């Protein structure tokens, strides 16, 4: 249908969701349902001397109590594996139920199955675990120091891996020759992913059908695969994983955790359906956290204000065990992005991945790219100051020029396209940059609240690919996507996509792609996702990959369908297929007005098969597996404007301008929604969120009483605009947009506050206390 691409069509997902009819995992039930409650370690590090389950087993309503001994007796794998292997990396096993040692608060030691939710929770408190507490190690860098408590015997010094990228010698030379150098130690604060829907799983098992898991998953096939390979050892075709409505993920529902495997094994053991739903505290303790980097970063600048070198040494906490994609986050998603939007001739980055007695750390919205962008964009502000240039001018001077694409960075990535200055210009104009600077000067002279302006010119590498390359870098999975398009005899269509949405609106946008290519109404297209029984193998939704990779797989299948339909039409029209074109819902013979066959009759003929070209199989459907040639590289410039109270250090974000370039937009309304949410996520990290552990390994912000999230009254409405630089290597010309705001916002906000206060750096989150102390230390200096 003409005009359907690029159109802000309202989401078809919404009528059910706004009326409470959406079915999330915990909404589901089954005949004979039982409930699981998991017994978790209250210690960050302890030896387990014994587990006494007798009192729990005798409690009212209890059906079963299982421990690691039961896992061993069942002879199943009983572990959750890491899916990204770096050279020389230590990979201690992560058992789904701990037997000898617990290594973080929340580590699972037993599970109780009972008739009701409350009975299960009551009985879980009766499981008596005899712990011998051990000293804990919780700091990302400190854990690798001499004398730190040792977490895994196979990982001396608590080092999981050491990794580096770039040319150390060339970078050293750049620093030796620099006119200005700046150095900064920064902490990228640990975040809770905090999907408002906690993780949950409903497991049903019978010997003939196998296992059915309804669960909060961003990638049902990946969960099935890891259940098969490592956790349960049931044959893959005997496991069905279904993701019903999923209430947000932000990365946390990519990963394979013990809990869902435990729920599955309970169902297999007790022979009844079992449901487990995480409490909020459990979610905080066990959902894989994000970030937690300590970095020493340096920038070298020449006398003309050009960046000549960048160097970064990072300690990245991995937590107690290596989660599903954890090792990729501080390495291939972080180290490779340290060139930002800039033409930097020498870069070196070294990363030490460390074990800590904390929840595992893995991909959370942005995953490595917010950490990298924070390093680059904080350094750019300090570099500008050292060079005596305005931050906007300093960035402009160092951009990769528009005529330099494709551009090979010094840290492996080849940017396929980009045009950075127009986005910067648009953002400065929209913000009224010069006027803001004038207002800032006026306030500095006259007093009152301090005004700060912060820029962040970010790049994002997303839709990570191609599979052969990521395989060579350590991925234990391909990063393609699948799509089946089935055209029904009456001309409507169903898409089966491996991109399983959890709020992104795929059912709407993917239908737009199909309607555009087939010339039909969007209502004539349904989109099915999130069920391993319905959909060919798929990789899921994360890393801003769905439109670029999942959408392109759909286009590939549509091309196959149109090629076949054109052959059928040519046969019916007694013309050569080369002379037949498809437009406005009909096949026409070029240059012969009036000779045409409508889409409907060609499709019907494909199924009637009464009159098909010789040798052609009936039917009209196609399955494609699309493996992209490269990442996509969305970019943009964001401007944060803050007011800081000089008396209290309180920060108010008064304006936020975002100019993003995600290439062609399928549905601008959905694009903007992704940007809005991404910004709030990044502002949250900058101003409020802090998943801090104390020295004993207790998560001190495990509930909403202590963990501060962005709320409506703390945020302004956002001011958005965009530029369009289509991706040159995928058929839709689209790039990812789901993480852009989260990547751009933290440095924009921190740059703004540092600008307001006039200090080099303040660690996130920028609490009033930290800002106040920064102001006082400046006065004292």
């Amino acid at each position: 249908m003409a005009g359907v691409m690029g159109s802000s069509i309202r989401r078809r997902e919404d009528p059910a969701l706004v009326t409470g009819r959406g079915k999330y995992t915990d909404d589901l039930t089954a005949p004979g349902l039982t409930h699981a409650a998991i017994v978790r370690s209250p210690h960050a590090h302890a030896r387990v001397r014994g587990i006494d389950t007798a009192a729990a087993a005798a409690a009212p309503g209890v059906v079963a109590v299982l421990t690691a001994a039961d896992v061993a007796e069942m002879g199943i794998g009983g572990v959750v594996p890491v899916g990204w292997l770096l050279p020389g990396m230590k990979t201690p096993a992560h058992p789904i139920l701990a037997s000898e040692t617990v290594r973080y608060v929340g580590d699972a030691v037993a599970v109780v199955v009972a008739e009701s939710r409350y009975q299960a929770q009551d009985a879980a408190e009766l499981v008596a675990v005899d712990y011998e507490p051990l000293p804990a190690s919780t700091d990302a860098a400190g854990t690798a120091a001499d004398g730190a408590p040792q977490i895994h015997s196979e990982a001396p010094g608590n080092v999981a891996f050491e990794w580096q990228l770039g040319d150390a010698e060339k970078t050293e030379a750049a620093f030796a020759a620099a006119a200005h150098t700046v150095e900064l130690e920064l902490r990228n604060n640990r975040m809770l992913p905090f999907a408002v829907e906690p993780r949950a799983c409903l497991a049903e098992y019978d010997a003939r059908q196998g296992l059915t898991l309804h669960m909060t998953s961003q990638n049902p096939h990946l969960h099935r695969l890891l259940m098969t390979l490592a956790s349960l050892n049931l044959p893959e075709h005997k496991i069905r994983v279904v993701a019903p409505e999923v209430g947000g993920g932000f990365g946390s529902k990519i990963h394979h955790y013990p809990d869902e495997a435990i729920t599955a094994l309970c169902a297999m053991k007790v022979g009844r359906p079992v449901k487990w739903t995480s409490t909020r505290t459990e979610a905080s303790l066990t959902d894989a956290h994000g970030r937690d980097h300590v970095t020493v970063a340096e920038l070298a600048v020449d006398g003309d204000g050009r960046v000549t070198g960048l160097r970064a040494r990072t300690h990245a906490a991995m937590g107690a065990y290596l989660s599903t994609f954890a090792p990729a986050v501080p390495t291939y998603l972080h180290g490779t992005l340290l060139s930002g939007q800039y033409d930097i001739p020498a870069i070196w980055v070294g990363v030490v991945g460390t074990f800590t007695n904390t929840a595992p750390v893995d991909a959370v919205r942005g995953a490595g790219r917010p950490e990298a962008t924070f390093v680059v964009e904080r350094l750019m502000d300090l570099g500008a100051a050292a060079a005596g240039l305005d931050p906007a001018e300093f960035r402009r001077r160092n951009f990769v020029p528009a005529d330099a694409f494709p551009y090979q960075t010094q840290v492996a990535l080849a940017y396929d396209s980009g045009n950075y200055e127009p986005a910067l210009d648009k953002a400065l104009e929209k913000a009224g940059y010069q006027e803001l600077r004038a207002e800032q000067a006026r306030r500095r002279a006259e007093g009152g609240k301090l005004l700060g302006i912060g820029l962040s010119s970010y790049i994002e590498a997303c839709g990570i690919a191609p599979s052969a390359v990521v395989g060579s870098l350590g991925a234990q999975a391909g990063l393609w996507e699948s799509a089946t398009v089935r055209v029904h005899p009456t001309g409507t269509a169903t898409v089966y996509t491996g991109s399983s949405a959890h709020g992104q609106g795929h059912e709407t946008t993917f239908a737009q792609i199909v309607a555009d290519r087939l010339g039909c109404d969007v209502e004539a297209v349904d989109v099915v996702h999130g069920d391993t029984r319905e959909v060919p193998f798929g990789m899921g939704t994360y890393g801003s990959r769905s439109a670029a990779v999942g959408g392109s797989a759909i286009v590939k299948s549509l091309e196959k369908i149109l090629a076949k339909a054109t052959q059928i039409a040519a046969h019916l029209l007694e013309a050569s297929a080369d002379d037949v074109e498809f437009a406005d819902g009909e096949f026409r013979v070029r240059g012969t007005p009036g000779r045409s066959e409508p889409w409907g009759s060609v499709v019907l003929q494909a199924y009637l098969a009464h009159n098909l070209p010789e040798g052609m199989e009936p039917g009209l459907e196609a399955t494609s597996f699309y493996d992209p040639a490269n990442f996509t590289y969305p970019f943009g410039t964001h401007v944060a404007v803050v007011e800081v109270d000089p008396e209290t250090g309180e920060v108010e974000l008064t304006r936020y301008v975002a100019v993003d370039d995600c290439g062609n937009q399928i549905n601008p309304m959905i694009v903007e929604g992704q940007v809005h949410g991404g910004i709030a996520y990044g502002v949250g990290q900058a101003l409020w969120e802090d998943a801090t552990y104390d020295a004993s390994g207790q998560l001190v912000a495990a509930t909403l009483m202590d963990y501060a999230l962005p709320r409506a009254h703390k945020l302004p409405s956002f001011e958005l605009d965009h530029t369009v630089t289509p991706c040159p290597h995928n058929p839709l010309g689209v790039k990812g947009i789901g993480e852009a705001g989260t990547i751009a916002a933290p440095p924009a906000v921190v740059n703004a506050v540092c600008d307001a206060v006039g200090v080099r750096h303040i660690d996130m989150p920028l609490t009033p206390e930290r800002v106040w102390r920064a102001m006082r230390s400046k006065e004292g200096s």
Partner: protein
Amino acid sequence: MKEAISVEVNGRRYEREVEPRTLLVHFLREQLGLTGTNVGCETSLCGACTVWMDGLAVKACTQLAVQADGASITTIEGLAGEDGSLHPLQQAFWDEHGLQCGYCTPGMVMAAAPLIEAKPDASEAEIRQALKGNLCRCTGYHNIVRAVKRAAAGGS
């Protein structure tokens, strides 16, 4: 030991026996099958479980079912018209892309409705204040605020 309660929910009266400790949200979800009211935090802080009790918005995760004895409850399922027509807020959330994953949406709608009833000309700042007890992790609140404004203005 169970307690008998009599509660009107969405215009229908239910006579049930509940454990005294049963949370209102679990009563609604598990005994009445009204799963539109969601649980996000169990501590009154995320607002996903917001329902109306005798006309006041309350968080059903920190109310006991026995406290609702004799009360009249409205959940998200009771908001649309009998003919299926959406409440102006539901319509506006749809029109303005005020939801993504939808998990917070029922609570958000139930929390916003009393505001627009009491103050149809509420400013953006007032709307934001009124929604500060409800968490959304997807939308950054931008389109939620627009939706509430739109509904307050009669849908235009």
